[in-house]
């Protein structure tokens, strides 16, 4: 293979770069992600048995998961679990909590205003931006269809 042309280089890189082990990562992600969901379900039942209604119990579950993920991040445990869990810890709300807490920890040395305050959303920012954007988009579609359905 010609190592001086772009095509040759790309072929050499492809030939020697090991592939991600999806057959190992996927089952791990499924088990960890599923485990988190089972835990969340148990928590919801616990909150309900303590007298919370449907809406309050769901909010309390989210708050609990965010708290636990942030605590484990701060203790330096979360990233060790995530090394095996992959998407299993990334996709649930735990991944979002971790992205925010880890960035806050890193930028702490740069002060509370321009450090933590400005940089806390560096990793999680896209989720918020496009979460809000899709909320607006959904709202417009909802209003327009509602308007035509009524008339």
């Amino acid at each position, binding site marked *: *293979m010609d*190592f*001086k042309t*772009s095509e040759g*280089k*790309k072929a*050499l*890189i492809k*030939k*020697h*770069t*090991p*592939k*991600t*082990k999806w057959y190992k*990562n996927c089952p791990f992600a499924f088990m960890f992600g599923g485990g988190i969901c089972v835990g969340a379900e148990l928590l919801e039942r616990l909150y309900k048995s303590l007298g919370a209604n449907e809406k309050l119990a769901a909010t309390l579950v989210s708050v609990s998961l965010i708290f636990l993920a942030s605590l484990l*991040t*701060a203790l*330096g445990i*979360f*990233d060790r*679990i*995530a*090394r095996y*869990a*992959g998407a299993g*810890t*990334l996709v649930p709300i735990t*991944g979002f909590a*971790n*992205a925010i*807490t*880890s*960035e806050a*920890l*890193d930028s702490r*040395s740069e002060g509370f205003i321009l450090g933590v305050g400005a940089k806390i959303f*560096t*990793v999680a920012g896209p989720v918020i931006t496009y979460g809000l954007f899709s909320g607006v988009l959904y709202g417009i579609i909802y209003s327009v269809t509602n308007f035509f359905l009524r008339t």
Partner: protein
Amino acid sequence: MKKVIKLDTPPVFTSYAAVGGYEEGRSRIGDKLDLCDPGDSFGQKTHELAEGEMAKCALNIALSKAELSHEALGLIVAGDLQNQCIASALGLGSFGAPFLGVYGACSTATESLLLCSALISLGYTSLAAAVTSSHNSAAEKQFRTPLEYGGQRAPSAQWTSTASGAFILSSPFSDINAVYSAREKLSGSGSITHSAFISEFMIGKVVDGSTKDGSNMGGAMAFAAAESIISYFEETGYSPSDFDYIVTGDLGRVGKDILCDILESKIPAAAQRHTDCGLLLYDSERQDVHSGASGCGTSAALLSCHFLPLLERGDIKNILFLSTGALMSPSSILQGSNILGVAPAIRITSTKRDF
């Protein structure tokens, strides 16, 4: 155009030292490092300051081994991986010597050594220090994701080493025997039977790595290493069998495989002599480093802990040392630029010293 410069009065390695952090302390060279901080902090509040302090420790140890005063230093050439090369300036500014901050990504060890030897040969100073450092936490934070971020690394990803190497070079006219006897007090009498010199250097050119994958820097740098090695042997006419080792900086597993694939078809003898600091540093059985080590401290630490002691004992006589750098920034990657590689080279030879 002539690229390989032969130094008529090759500068000699007077003294050297390497320090590291936690992973380096339990790496293959753990017992050979001059200092290890299992906390990676070197007594500092931030990772950024820790890197500067680490470089300072390395240079101080190198000076004290040779019983030299920092006032004797006529020049410091230093580099690191942080933005604006700040760790070196913060850590080494207090030595009060003329300072050149250099950036060559992970090729900084060779870059600073060749600049030192060129300036010594020009007569700028008779005693100069080349210092290189990289800090895993500072680099991860700057180039990738926050430290505690829970993500999976690609199999081709490498682990940035927390390490610093300091090398003191002097012109061959200095009274080297006094320094050697000072150093032998620590390393044992008879441990320095040979002097190690930088006898040639070649500045690397920038080579397109043809990948945008920041998790595969070894692959991107392999082409620069291949071009440097091939053009070195073409120009000098040497045979790779004249060399004990052809050492690259931090290609890791993927980069070494690509380089050896290329060399096998061009100069097979060079492929046989090739070894890579990125694969020598960590023990991949015990340490979760994927494709190997990276970071400019990697080649500096290996040169100080492994290759220079071998050269000074006379076990090996002649090595070609190329640190490999992946040139990119977080912005350039996001904007879709390819990762570029550069591989400067120095030839280090050893000759029996006169007592």
